[in-house]
């Protein structure tokens, strides 16, 4: 496809505006740091350079980008299908729980069978957790924004209960330490490392493959077309004979499934067991990565890399200047606020283009 000069300019601006928004958020963060009595120059060095300073930093960034990409892909399907899935946190937890539980039952299977099986299990766990709000929305018109948030809170409590009771590692009881974590998965179930001596695991490749699959699904299949149609206009879709409720549930199911897969790869690639707080905020940050990538599966790849870097950098900054981890959430909150705000300028530009030039609207 050839791009006209004006299209090129729009594309460049379309990338620069959100990046400017992130820069704006970090600038606002300076205020917070000054308020906290921290020298901002000292703090922002690790934040901006840390993630890229060496192979180790880059590897950490890719590791954090992996769940973000998977959640963000789910956000693409959900939002394109007209469901606002805020339930990534709970769906990650559900996926991680399913994967761990099944993994602990099937220790004797060889890795070549076990790994795909556990990935699928995680997907199903997240999909089921997402299906509840999806069905409630489709059948009873219950706000999915609120019910997914409630499902997050329920999942966190549920796993907290399991890890202190039925699923706690017997060794924790035997030694009397009682740390809330499950038994470790057998090594056959661990995702192999793809960059030696770093934490980058097979999950990164899986996430990239999923990005391509989600793209093909949304833009090259009839079902994907219908999902987008329902998200674009419910009334028009209904008029065209599409079963709107069914596709809304499907969008929620796939969206939850991808978040569940993120939970599975976190367990199989990083922790090798179930822990409290396995979702680590990825369910929220993944939403931002999805929006930042313009709800396009390929766009979410660089977006999740960027937000992975932000998480790694914030982590490094937090440790370098010794402030509490709250700073990471505060910065993330600012980034969300700035990014969603900056969208106004992007929309204005595309509105002008439609008015002015008769060029086809890129909104796919």
């Amino acid at each position, binding site marked *: 496809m050839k791009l006209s000069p004006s299209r090129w300019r729009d594309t460049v601006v379309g990338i620069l505006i959100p990046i400017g928004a992130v820069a704006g958020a970090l600038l606002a963060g300076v205020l917070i740091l000054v308020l906290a009595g921290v020298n901002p120059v000292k703090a922002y060095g690790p934040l901006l350079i840390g993630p890229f300073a060496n192979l180790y930093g880059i590897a950490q960034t890719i590791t954090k980008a992996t769940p973000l990409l998977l959640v963000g892909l789910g956000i693409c399907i959900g939002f394109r299908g007209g469901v606002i899935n805020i339930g990534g946190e709970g769906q990650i937890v559900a996926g991680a729980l399913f994967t761990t539980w099944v993994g602990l039952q099937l220790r004797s299977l060889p890795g070549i069978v076990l790994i795909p099986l556990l990935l699928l299990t995680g997907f199903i766990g997240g999909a089921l957790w997402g299906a509840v709000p999806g069905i409630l929305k489709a059948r009873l018109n*219950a706000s999915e924004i*609120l019910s997914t*948030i409630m499902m997050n*809170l329920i999942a966190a409590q549920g796993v907290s209960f399991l890890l202190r009771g039925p699923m706690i590692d017997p060794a924790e009881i035997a030694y009397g330490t009682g740390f809330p974590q499950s038994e470790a998965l057998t090594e056959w179930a661990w995702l192999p490392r793809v960059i030696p001596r770093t934490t980058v695991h097979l999950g990164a490749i899986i996430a990239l493959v999923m990005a391509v699959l989600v793209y093909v699904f949304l833009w090259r299949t009839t079902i994907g077309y219908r999902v987008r149609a329902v998200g674009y206009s419910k009334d028009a879709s209904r008029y065209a004979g599409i079963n709107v409720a069914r596709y809304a549930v499907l969008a929620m199911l796939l969206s939850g499934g991808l978040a569940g897969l993120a939970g599975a790869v976190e367990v199989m690639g990083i922790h090798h067991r179930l822990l409290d707080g396995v979702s680590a905020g990825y369910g929220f940050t993944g939403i931002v990565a999805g929006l930042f990538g313009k709800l396009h599966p390929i766009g979410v790849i660089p977006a999740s890399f960027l937000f992975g870097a932000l998480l790694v950098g914030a982590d490094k900054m937090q440790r370098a200047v010794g402030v*509490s981890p709250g700073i990471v*959430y505060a910065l993330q*909150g600012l980034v*969300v606020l700035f990014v*969603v705000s900056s969208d106004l300028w992007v929309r204005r530009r595309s509105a002008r283009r439609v008015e002015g030039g008769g060029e086809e609207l890129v909104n796919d």
Partner: protein
Amino acid sequence: MINELLKEGALILILASGVRLATPYLFAALGEMIGQRSGVLNLGVDGTMMLSAFTAFYVTFASGSLALGVLVGVLTGGLMGLIMAVVSVTMRAEQGISGIGLHLFGLGMSNLLFRLSLGAISTVEGFRPLSVPILSDLPVIGAVFFRHNVLVYLAFVLVPVAWVVLFRTPLGLKIRAVGENPQAADTLGVSVTGIRYLCVIIGGMMSGLAGTYLSIGLNNMYVDNITNGMGWIAVALVYFGRWHPWGVLAGSLLFSVVNALQIWVQVRGIAIPYEFAVMMPYVLTIVALAFAVRRAQQPAALSKPYERAEA
């Protein structure tokens, strides 16, 4: 257990504690209702409550003045409301997402400031119960409703106040018009932007009051994650209450009595895992959303940014 529950004393305790626990729900949900009536869905309630809970606590701790604590808690909430208004009204951002951003900001800031300033859990002398003369001597009702602190009374008084303002004043008419049909309101010379700013800021202030009550009216201390998801439930209570002050009151009381019952059960040491007890209001919220809410009644322009059509 049932026998114990049926004793008059136990019931009064549970109901009285239900009235106290309804207070933060009422403040936050009434405020959120006003914002939603003007067409803005603010999901930042929980984060706003946390930040206000901290600032109110800290100021009270440092100055010894409860009044100053309340003032700062409310102002903090108002400021959070202002941020939400700028992002969702002026910048016309997707409200479902910007509220999450505001929540994360409040969550992070409260944690950061707490660690920096206090670091450890401390306590203050919070609001003392104030018995209402005569009424507090009534059997049962007196103990349940009239032996609380001033913030509790304020929350309940705000229910009829919200009703009068929304349904019996020109301002209320404007608010509802902006939430139902901003184009028409704009045509009639009502400032959509002005009304939405006002409502979202008031909503923020009331979330601020909710948080303030938690730290210096109920617990008399500040801990991380002091809200335990109350802010999210407050948003759901607006749906449950069908965007009406009396409905919000009913929902708040239902949830708080369930909560009080849950706490009573835990204190008795009855074998329900703690996590299930905490989960109860969340599950109840989902059930309520699915079966008790008719969204046909929601403000027609809820969560839709308004853009005047250019001539």
